[in-house]
């Protein structure tokens, strides 16, 4: 290596793509990487459920009612003889899709509105901020329950209810980040060369506020999975006989003395999924925050 090669190498290291740097940092965090692997595995299990589930999740059998875990039924069977493992695998579909879809709704609605409030300011900001305050003043689950109840019990309505309830957090976060980014030199520069507002907002502000949104999205998925399980537990989410972790727990509560395994596995599945998204969110926060070394 010649001396002349050094400056360019140093410059290359300095200009490392922020995403590459974030990935490098994330890879160093064992907890976050384990969580990422679990999340990917859970998604695969949910997608592949029809092929890997040992039994039909809705097939009842009077000869296998409330059997404890065995070689034939690893997680035992439920009150009408359905295989708990198969129901957990299929239940992952409801939980994960609820997590992803409702956060998708929240991001899809919250980010543009937050960007608008932060960038436009004035009365638009004042009105949106008051609505956000008002929505955040109603406790999360209570608002989700009220919305789900008024919309009618079904998995898709539960997703909408959770998505709408999670939206204000994204509006507030995006607005705050936009306010910060708006006064940065690169935005001033983009404005000075005559870019239209929409272009500045979408091309210059938005990409720079993605990291905190990504962290929030990961934590929001964890919250949405718990919320979906809670709504299903109350009977406002996935409707029987379709399996969902929350409704399985609801049934299991009635048989806790005779068949505790019915309660253990679905709860553990929720815990495991939520833990993974929480850990991933924490890891992303550490990896994406430039102030964090």
């Amino acid at each position: 290596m010649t001396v002349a090669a050094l400056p360019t190498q140093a410059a290359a290291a300095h200009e490392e793509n922020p995403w590459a740097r974030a990935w490098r940092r994330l890879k160093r965090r064992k907890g976050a990487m384990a969580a990422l692997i679990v999340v990917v595995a859970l998604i695969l299990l949910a997608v592949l459920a029809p092929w890997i589930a040992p039994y039909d999740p809705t097939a009842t059998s009077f000869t296998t009612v409330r059997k404890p875990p065995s070689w034939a039924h690893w997680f035992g069977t439920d009150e009408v003889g359905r295989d708990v493992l198969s129901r957990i695998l299929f239940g992952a579909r409801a939980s994960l899709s609820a997590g992803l879809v409702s956060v998708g709704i929240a991001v899809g609605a919250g980010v543009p509105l937050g960007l608008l409030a932060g960038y436009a300011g004035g009365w638009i900001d004042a009105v949106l901020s008051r609505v956000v305050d008002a929505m955040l003043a109603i406790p999360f689950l209570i608002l989700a329950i009220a919305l789900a109840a008024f919309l009618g019990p079904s998995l898709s309505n539960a997703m909408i209810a959770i998505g709408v309830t999670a939206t204000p957090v994204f509006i507030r976060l995006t607005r705050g980040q936009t306010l910060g980014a708006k006064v940065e030199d690169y935005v001033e520069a983009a404005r000075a060369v005559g870019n239209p507002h929409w272009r500045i907002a979408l091309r210059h502000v938005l990409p720079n506020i993605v990291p905190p949104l990504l962290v929030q999205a990961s934590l929001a998925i964890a919250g949405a999975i718990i919320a979906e399980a809670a709504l299903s537990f109350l009977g406002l989410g996935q409707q029987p006989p379709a399996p969902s972790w929350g409704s399985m727990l609801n049934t299991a509560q009635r048989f806790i003395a005779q068949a505790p395994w019915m309660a253990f596995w679905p709860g553990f599945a929720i815990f495991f999924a939520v833990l993974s998204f929480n850990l991933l969110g924490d890891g992303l926060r550490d990896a994406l925050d430039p102030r964090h070394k």
Partner: protein
Amino acid sequence: MLAFLTQRLLQIIPTLIIVSMLIFGLQQLLPGDPALIMAGEERDPKVLAEIREQYRLDQPIPVQYFYWVKGVLTGNLGESMRLKSSVSSLVAEKLPVTLQLAFMALLIAIGVGIPAGIVSAVKKETPWDYAANLFALWGLSTPNFWLGILMIFLFSVTLGWLPASGYVRLGEDWKASLATTVMPAFVLGNALAAVLMRHTRSAMLQAMGTDYVRTARAKGLHENRVVLKHALRNAMTPVITLLALDFGTLLSGAVLTEQIFSIPGFGKLIVDSVFNRDYAVVQGVVLVTSSIYISLNLLADIAYMLVNPRLRG
């Protein structure tokens, strides 16, 4: 200070108005004719017309909203169609139950979360810190309805120490009351303890790095005194204000916890009303809950001002 208070109070008004609009608007989401739902089996057009007139369903929505707000402002939250009593009296009956539960949960959360946060900050990057962080992750990730069921299995079904469900009023028999509420309070406090631990840890870490803590150490003070007197006192300010905000989490959590332990509180009232399509109760409960939450937010801001001399001005 006065200017701040006035400004803060004025800010609440639009928030409350929008909250009331949102809550009222929920009813408009209802599929079908509310009069038909209220009438139940009854399909007599005369009865339906009477219901419409009585509940002003024949009026435009803004007029209905106006009458609803007028009622709310005079303490009339409407009438429960199922329980045939006023929503205000239902709230007055159920709220103390949930407040007892929330208060006990708060005590448990403070008792566990704050010491855990202090230890984890003082013993940063030691097994103590890792254990406290694991505990926080557990608390944040455990669905409280699962924890409730597991506790019922352990303490009621297997060991037989505590009743699995039911509620006894504090005034009736305090021992029985505590026995019926200790498990739900623990379930409810678990997640809050985790949040508190994280808040305390980061506030303590920040305080431990400040000049006044270095000065206290340089004076030769005992480490315990430095931690408990100098760092902790300053670190507690943000933690206490965040506590008020976390109260909303407790109210949300109470919905499921009360359901599992069959505790006749606020949370159970809302769920039962949801299933019986008793919308006046749902609206009333949501309104009361958010008003409590908004007031606590205000109190937190005032408390923050009072303990932080730099903001008093």
